[in-house]
């Protein structure tokens, strides 16, 4: 079936056809009569907002979910894919949004998983390793087969995922947001590999939110919105603007209006900070940074460059090995979150369901998660339900949280609303310094706009904000200064007014820039 790729893929019959696929989850119609096909040798992009149903459609293709309605054809033959084994048997490969790797196993073992061994019941890792070397040299995917996965960087892990698919000779390969965790350089490298694969006649399904990538890589584009196909198009026929509109379903608003605020005193001063990650290597090295009252400092960077460890060490979730973190004159390095918060910090964590909210708790309980023990909400050993209820109702109103009631279990709300709850709770503590990590990731556009407005408003009220985001639009739209983080260090701190995306992009990739526009280049301290 490996028809060689041509410049006119439209003339070739599709290798995969999905017709009228519908998938329901309790309370959600994740896919609604979706039609989708892939021809050999093409890159067909699935585009859509968070929760549009992209992953669900692909999990159906891979046999992880069964569709409620609709059918699948492979090379014109109707098929049922009951399990990943079926999918692999049909030479379908999938690189999941969250890597499907076993961290304690080696690269070779991960690749060998699920395959027949040439040595009967024993594993045949030597043969596997040899074949891995072959594949990696022909595609330029350098990786050591004998190393355990947990020791690898994110980029390397992704290479392992691709090798896994190639090893199984996948003719149809799904890549669910493969670029989310890569540097621009790594993205370029990946695209080279992907093109090489498609020109060998493989069909690729590419999933991304990033419009410039979609425009650069795709042969065809299908846009999903709320589980439905919002349109089919090609890069030649469309523009980024149009795609955005198709995704969201309405005209997209630009960055919020930002009144000019004169920054005040230093509120957060970090110096000489070194922090280790879970696997024991330095994630943040000797970092200096200052955030002033009435200022938003944006940390730009590809994820995995120490942003998480930086945020966690400021709030106290992770204890730095050296350095100082001063919040309004109080040293908080090495403190627990309770103490750091006492000094005036608040925290919107990157992973909202892991670090931000207790899913099983009600909306109300999450809204007072930080302050439930204060005199306002408890007395004589008991919670003051009257005061709590009043407070929560007000926050729900103020932040326009869409919830049936404050008694609703939080996990049944959409991501955007959960994020609003966290933000409302954090801002209600009247912090002097806010650490906001990826505050709008996975949040619908409406909620994101609202969250941005709130951050700007607090800035006017004198709060110091450290905004950590991978979304350059967000950073450029909100931050007064941009600190670019790469491999645990700040490459440079730029005045937003004077900075350009190209400059920031290069810094994110670790490329030292020429001394850029004077204003903010100097590192603080």
């Amino acid at each position, binding site marked *: 079936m490996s028809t060689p790729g041509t410049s006119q893929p439209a003339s070739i019959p599709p290798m995969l056809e999905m017709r009228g696929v519908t998938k329901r989850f309790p309370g959600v119609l994740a896919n609604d009569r979706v039609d989708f096909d892939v021809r050999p040798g093409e890159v067909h992009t699935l585009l859509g907002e968070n929760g549009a149903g992209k992953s669900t459609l692909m999990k159906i293709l891979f046999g992880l979910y069964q569709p409620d309605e609709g059918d699948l054809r492979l090379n014109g033959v109707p098929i049922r894919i009951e399990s990943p084994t079926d999918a692999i048997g049909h030479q379908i490969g999938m690189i999941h949004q969250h890597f499907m790797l076993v961290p304690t196993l080696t690269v070779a073992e991960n690749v060998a998983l699920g395959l027949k061994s040439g040595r009967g019941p024993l594993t045949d890792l030597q043969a596997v390793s040899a074949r891995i070397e072959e594949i990696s040299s022909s595609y330029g995917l350098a990786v050591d087969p004998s190393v355990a996965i947990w020791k690898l960087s994110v980029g390397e892990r992704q290479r392992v995922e691709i090798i896994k698919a190639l090893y199984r000779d996948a003719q149809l390969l799904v890549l669910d947001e493969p670029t989310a965790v890569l540097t621009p350089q790594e993205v370029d490298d990946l695209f080279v590999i992907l093109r090489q694969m498609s020109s060998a006649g493989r069909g690729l399904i590419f999933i991304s939110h990033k419009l410039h990538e979609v425009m650069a890589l795709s042969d065809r584009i299908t846009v999903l919105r709320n589980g439905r196909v919002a349109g089919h198009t090609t890069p030649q026929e469309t523009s980024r603007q149009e795609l955005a509109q198709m995704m969201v379903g309405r005209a997209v608003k630009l960055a919020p209006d930002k009144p000019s605020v004169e920054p005040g005193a230093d509120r957060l001063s970090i110096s000489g900070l070194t922090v280790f990650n879970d696997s024991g290597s330095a994630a943040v090295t000797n970092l200096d940074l200052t955030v002033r009252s009435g200022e938003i400092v944006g940390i730009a960077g590809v994820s995995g460059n120490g942003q998480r460890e930086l945020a966690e060490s400021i709030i106290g979730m992770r204890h730095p090995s050296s350095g100082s973190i001063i919040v309004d004159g109080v040293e908080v390095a090495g403190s627990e*979150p309770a103490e750091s918060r006492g000094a005036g910090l608040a925290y919107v964590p990157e992973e909202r369901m*892991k670090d931000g909210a207790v899913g099983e708790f009600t909306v109300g309980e999450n809204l007072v*998660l930080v302050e439930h*023990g204060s005199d306002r909400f408890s007395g004589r050993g008991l*919670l003051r339900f009257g005061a709590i209820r009043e407070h929560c109702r007000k926050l729900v109103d103020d932040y326009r949280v869409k919830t049936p009631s404050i008694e609703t279990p939080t996990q049944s709300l959409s991501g955007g609303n959960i994020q609003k709850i966290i933000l409302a709770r954090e801002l209600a503590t009247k912090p002097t310094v806010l650490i906001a990590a990826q505050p709008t990731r996975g949040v619908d556009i409406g909620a994101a706009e609202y969250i941005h407005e709130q951050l700007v408003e607090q800035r006017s009220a004198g709060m110091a904000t450290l905004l950590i985001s991978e979304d350059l639009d967000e950073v450029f739209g909100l931050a007064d200064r941009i600190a670019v983080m790469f491999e645990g260090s700040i490459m440079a701190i730029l005045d937003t007014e004077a900075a350009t995306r190209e400059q920031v992009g290069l810094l994110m990739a670790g490329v030292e820039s020429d001394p850029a526009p004077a204003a903010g280049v100097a590192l603080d301290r």
Partner: protein
Amino acid sequence: MRRLVGGLVPLGAALVAFAFGALMLLAVGASPWDGLTALVSGAFGSGDRLIATAVKATPLLLVGAGITISFRASVVNIGGEGQIVMGALLATSLALGVPDLPAILLVPLVLMAGAVGGGLWGAVPGALKAYAGVNEILSTVMLNLVAVQFMNYLLRGPLIDPLELETGTRIPQTQRLSDNAALPALVPGTRLHLGVLVAVLAAFAVWVLLWRTPLGFRLRAVGHNPDAARAAGIPVRRSVVTALGLSGSLSGLAGAILVFGSEGQRMATDGSAAGFTGSAGFNGIVTALFGGLHPLWTIPSSYLFGGLLTGATNLQRQLQIPSALAIALNGLVVIFVVSSGRFQARIDRFVDGRRNLGTALADDGEPLAPAEAEVDSRG
């Protein structure tokens, strides 16, 4: 609606377990119907039986209420046996030390000593988990063994009844403890003693603690999501110690009640923990589970299991069926109730779906379906 269904599923599971119990009766050559009659009449057949069941249920309820605290905080406590023993030992020592205090002082004091003894013995694995990362399943199992040997040591040595030494019988038991420490009868002339009331009040107190106090709020937050709780400024480690400590203190209270509410009014050992506790430390887990890990539902649940135990004694008296049947039946109930979680979840989803999310009810203290009560027991 969900509550109703939520209650029916474990009940159905228990019925299936009892059907297996009937099979076991057949297997040992007894009539299931006679067995059931003997069981039920032995448990609930008369006023005295009802009271005996209440007395038997008391340690189960206390341990079970304690278990709800620790499990809600996602800490597994299999150390009930040891905590009961240590609570009883401290209470006993106190009663031996100050036997002449008036009852009005001594009774509350021995109960408190029980709670303190059990609480400390629970706090140890709590601290080991929180500060040294030692898995609490293991440490509680090991501490049970240590507590038993400690009890044997004390009851054979320092605390042994001097009369036992004198007569040379050396039964490892204390002397009869001060009457001032005896738990007074609630209804004069019956065995229904103060301990039963204390246990019921304790269950209510646990409910208040978990859903009406900031401490309980923190414990539940830690139980559901320790990362989010910590990030919000809740001291997770201290909460783990507190949860196990409180859980242990209720078991310890049960230990004191076993001593001072018993007819013998003394502590004795046959060398094993079960000889003193009657396995209440394990059976309390069963009752808590059957009560949906909710302290108030644990009250009827303990009463039912207490009935199973008193009924089993009757079964043995009347039909000569070893009371081991009750232990096996307990095991089956646990297995079936826990296994029914998936059906429960399916039913819940069905019910939720029909309610269309909008009217979601999340009242405080909804019993946890066993499947939701998944406890992280990793190291």
